[in-house]
């Protein structure tokens, strides 16, 4: 298992670099807190999510490596965003009296990490299919009816739309399965 962290700021985060910490806590954390507060959370939730995101990145860097294709701050924000929406969905299932999100279990941390890694892989592999294919898959998975897909993409029939979705999905699946990271993220 390789431990590749392709971004110098990931290494700086792991090493506890003061300037990286200053940037993260003074520049980025307020943005994450604002985002969480605008999505049914409190400032405390936002700070906790931010800490969890940094923890996740350090854990991944130490165990398996982190490869970032976007900007460092953009990626940290995305991880925070995904963690927060996981929490929101979880909280809908649980009756809570507290407003502060409870500490996650190690297994939940693990699930969040693997999901983020899978999504990173999806996002990267999406660049390998055409823009139209990616747009079609996004519409399909957002449950756009085939009748609307036919109209939007000017396909001849619903069957033609299905076949196009099938081809795009297969192409993306094949790319994902061919990536070396795949075996670490899915049961074989």
């Amino acid at each position, binding site marked *: *298992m390789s431990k590749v962290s392709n971004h110098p700021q990931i290494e700086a985060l792991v090493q506890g670099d003061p300037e990286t910490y200053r940037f993260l806590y003074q520049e980025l954390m307020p943005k994450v807190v604002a985002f969480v507060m605008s999505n049914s959370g409190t400032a405390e939730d936002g700070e906790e999510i931010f800490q969890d995101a940094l923890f996740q990145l350090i854990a991944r860097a130490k165990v398996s490596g982190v490869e970032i294709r976007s900007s460092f701050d953009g990626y940290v924000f995305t991880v925070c965003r995904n963690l927060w929406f996981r929490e929101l969905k979880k909280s809908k299932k649980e009756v809570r009296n507290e407003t502060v999100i409870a500490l996650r279990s190690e297994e939940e941390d693990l699930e969040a990490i693997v999901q983020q890694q899978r999504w990173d892989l999806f996002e990267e592999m999406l660049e390998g299919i055409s823009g139209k294919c990616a747009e079609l898959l996004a519409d399909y998975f957002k449950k756009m009816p085939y009748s609307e897909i036919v109209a939007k993409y000017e396909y001849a029939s619903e069957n033609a739309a299905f076949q196009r979705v099938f081809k795009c999905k297969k192409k993306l699946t094949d790319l994902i399965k061919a990536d070396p990271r795949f075996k670490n993220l899915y049961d074989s």
Partner: protein
Amino acid sequence: MNEELQHKIEAYLQGQMTAQEKSAFETAMDQDADLAQEVQIAREMETYFSDSESTASLPNNEQTAALRSFLRGEEAEEVRKQLAAAKDSYAVDDTKNSKRFWINPIAAVLVVALLGTFAWNYFGSSSNADLYQQYYSDTDLPSLVQRNGGQDKLIKGVELFQEGSYQEALEAFDDYESNTGELDTGVYLYQGVAHGRLQQWEEALSHFDQMIQLGSLDASRGLWLKALTYLQMDQPDQAKPLLDQLINDSGFNANKAKELREELD
């Protein structure tokens, strides 16, 4: 994988199978690792695109075991402590930030709303979302014009917005519009962002257009926000002519518009 199998996977994931079909399909997955893998990928693809909850199971492999071991170990505890100490040392007291938000509610809400809109639609395209984050800054926000009549309703809208009650916030803004004698046109930007949070793109764009058509100083600010909204909608081609206009008119953030325009090419 053939088309028939694809139909079956689709029916299984969308809960369209009868109990008998479902049972047979699950038995087939137990006996066919490749099929199980196809279903797992399709399931995770769905969560990725639709932002729905992941139900995919963890893989049983070396990396999962190594991560689990790390998370349960003392080193993980040390990392948590290190981060807690870092936060104490570096984070700025956010109570000061909250006060600032109240002094300038429009500015505050636009920060929140635009960040929110960006993230909500993040899955559209990482590059467009990255560009949004790269090009957005607090200095893009309009200054708050203090007025008397109806100001309380505007503040009410801001409060609702901060709570994430965007529909109610829009109603408060409508109320403010109907009852105020002297409209703060900054509310158009506000409404545009609110509609964007509700993914009501036409309305969002229409409010920015209202600001643009006013021809006031803030019109070109509306142009900039409209261009950024198109990035959030993952329609960079629509953003390009707006950015061109900003560049040609030396409008709001013209230099940033130029840089962003080049990024989009």
